[in-house]
């Protein structure tokens, strides 16, 4: 599970049945240290309706599948399970910036 920021959305027509009707968002894991190497963004299914630029909690594996109702097998392994309203991260200013942006 990680904290990330929604940076985009993906559309696909040719896909496995399990992905039909699922909104797919591009999420980049939040870096606590800006000098960390770039990570590959994750494509997460979104049952909650998150928007671009929002911070979200992304679950992987069984937790992601449970977020879509039941522990069945689905052909995806990442899902947005929370849209962040607030939080506190030691010695980092990213959340303050986020709050300022949200509050205008």
């Amino acid at each position, binding site marked *: 599970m990680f904290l990330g920021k929604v940076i*985009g959305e993906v559309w696909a027509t040719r896909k496995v049945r399990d992905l039909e009707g699922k909104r797919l968002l591009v999420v980049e894991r939040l870096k606590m240290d800006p000098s960390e190497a770039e990570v590959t963004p994750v494509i997460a299914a979104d049952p909650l309706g998150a928007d671009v630029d929002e911070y979200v909690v992304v679950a992987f594996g069984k937790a992601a599948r449970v977020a879509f109702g039941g522990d069945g097998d689905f052909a995806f392994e990442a899902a947005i399970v929370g849209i962040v309203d607030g939080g506190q991260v030691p010695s980092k200013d990213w959340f303050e910036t986020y709050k300022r942006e949200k509050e205008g």
Partner: protein
Amino acid sequence: MYLATVIGQVWATRKEPTLSGLRLLVVQPFKRNHPDEASTMVAVDTIGADVGERVLVVMGRSARHAIGKGHDIGFQCAIVGVVDGAEIDGKRIGQTAADDGAQ
């Protein structure tokens, strides 16, 4: 699940028996700022993707489920969709690199 580009195909005659009949493609995951730095992966193609196309790749149990031969299969990476388009950082990503920026 990751966004990736199909960059090639691999063939193997001597392989784990559960892999027989599977089409194996080489994919490179998408990176925002350093597109050429991502290391490549080999993924089973469940959907009929072509070289150059952007695809959705899953790992682990989800991949084995998508491959659909039961869960006891010696592979853990699968292509589950061909991307029509994406918008990342407000920029349009096409089905192939040649389509980038097109509306």
